[in-house]
């Protein structure tokens, strides 16, 4: 039988032949992730942005800031709203006008992981306690969906938050916030001519980056019979069906262990193997992110390292 026809008719046996010789159709060993790249500042209309590629899977994350009045219970905290979008450009399965179920599930996971990891201390987003704080909208767009969506979305989110700069602003006594032009930082309010501003008594907070906690990194693995495959592509995800997503931060702490059902139960041996793969991957991705940040920022790495 011809190879193409065999693959078409019996996709699983076709794939298992590869697995038996410990290699995957794209040439990767089972435990290796696809080539990963991070580029920061891809969108200048956003306050922070990052374009991330893991293999063919491509995600663009952007952070937009708005000023809000903090709630009564947490007067010194801002807030972050996370949303994950799968526009119809990313996959043949998505059609316009119909919301994708996978997108809302990943959106929920993403905001859970970001909360669990305590990456952003919300008090960092405070401008003037009780009066004004930043509301950060983190939107992640999937541009090309080819498996391991949560891993890529999380990396894009972390990178966009690391790239985010809180602009220099001055706050009046009533809690009104005015932008301060960046070139003459803290000197003159941009709208100095407007009569409503009382420059006297305004407190100025300078332009700054967020201090981030230990960043989380995710790795999805597929379990099939005795095999464990790291970073599956879309084809592998539909074929093998039993997935485990492990999120670890750079300190080696487990942030999430997500296994939604599947035919193979996760034994202690599998759990341990997955964790060690994820740990290795977290170190690898952290290095990629660090290099991207160093390329981008003049000042040395602002990411907290252990």
């Amino acid at each position, binding site marked *: 039988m011809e190879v193409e026809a065999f693959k078409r008719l019996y996709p699983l046996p076709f794939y298992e032949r590869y697995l038996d010789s410990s290699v995957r159709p794209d040439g990767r060993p089972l435990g290796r992730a696809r080539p990963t790249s991070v580029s920061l500042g891809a969108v200048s209309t956003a306050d922070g942005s990052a374009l991330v590629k893991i293999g063919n899977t491509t995600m663009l994350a952007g952070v937009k800031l708005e000023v809000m009045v903090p709630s009564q219970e947490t007067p010194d905290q801002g807030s972050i709203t996370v949303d994950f979008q799968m526009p119809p450009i990313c996959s043949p399965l998505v059609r316009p006008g119909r919301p994708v179920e996978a997108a809302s599930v990943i959106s929920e996971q993403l905001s859970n992981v970001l909360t669990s990891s305590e990456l952003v201390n919300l008090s960092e987003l405070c401008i003037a306690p009780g009066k004004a704080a930043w509301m950060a909208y983190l939107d992640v767009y999937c*541009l090309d969906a080819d498996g391991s969506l949560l891993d890529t979305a999380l990396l894009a989110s972390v990178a966009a938050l690391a790239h985010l700069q809180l602009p220099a602003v001055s706050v009046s006594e009533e809690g009104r916030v005015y932008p301060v032009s960046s070139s003459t930082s803290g000197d003159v309010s941009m709208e100095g001519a407007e009569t409503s501003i009382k420059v006297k008594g305004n407190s100025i907070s300078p332009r700054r980056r967020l201090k981030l906690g230990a960043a989380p990194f995710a790795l999805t693995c597929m379990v099939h019979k005795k095999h464990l495959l790291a970073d599956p592509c879309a084809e592998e995800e539909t074929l093998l069906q039993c997935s485990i997503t492990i999120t670890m931060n750079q300190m080696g702490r487990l942030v999430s262990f997500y296994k939604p059902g599947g035919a193979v139960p996760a034994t202690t041996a599998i759990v341990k193997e997955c964790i060690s793969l994820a740990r290795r991957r977290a170190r690898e991705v952290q290095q990629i992110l660090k290099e991207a940040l160093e390329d981008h920022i003049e000042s040395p790495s602002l990411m907290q390292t252990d």
Partner: protein
Amino acid sequence: MSRAASTYAVPSYNATPDLSVKGVPPSLLSPEGSRLDGRLPHECRPAYMKTGAVNAAAGSAYAEFGQTKVIVSVYGPRESKKAQAFSDIGRLNCDVKFASFSTSVRGKASQGMEEKEYTGMLHKALECAVALHTFPKTTVDVFALILQSGGGDLAVVISCASMALADAGIVMYDLVPAVSLSCTGSEVLLDASMEEERWGDGGMIVAAMTSRNEITQLTMTGEWPSTKVSEALQLCLDACLKLAELMRSCLKEQVVAGGQ
């Protein structure tokens, strides 16, 4: 979390100062005759185009014209929606969306309207360029996402979409380059940027199949004395011609690179 009162929500804080906050429109041309970004009035923005940006799609293209960044992917020809009536020629289905961070103010209320309008205009601009009879009973989907809006968005979407169609191997009569233009006072500014669009007296968008010398889409806003109309139209067509060359050479390069 309580959302801010409207007075807080309106200003947005950008790396570049937002012009919408200022009351005074900037002067779009310096006394020496150069524009805000240093271009001459009849000079286009630097353009970068690349096909094959989305692997999952049948064809795709990414375009970057100055500050405007757009990605388009094409799916199909594939089965039409069940609800649609039988058609012995193919269908072209378009959809244009803005990313939430693409504009200076996030999630403007008017954005949904704009997306719908762009969707309709993109469809009309491409419809007559695609050989619909080559894929009877099926649908070709053209989906665009504006990643960063920096002026002339629709024109970039149209150009990028025709590249993506070509990349998908959809039979077309010609590529459809599109160019926008803004007029201010006595000058016309080709390939207008965001600020020029916002403060200009009027604007024009032209999409054309240059080798057939056919205009597929044209809109004008603002006041246009008749002499200026023909001048602007000619300028746009010339720019379309140059853009078409760029698009062709870009497509050829990709094919050569892919063949190796």
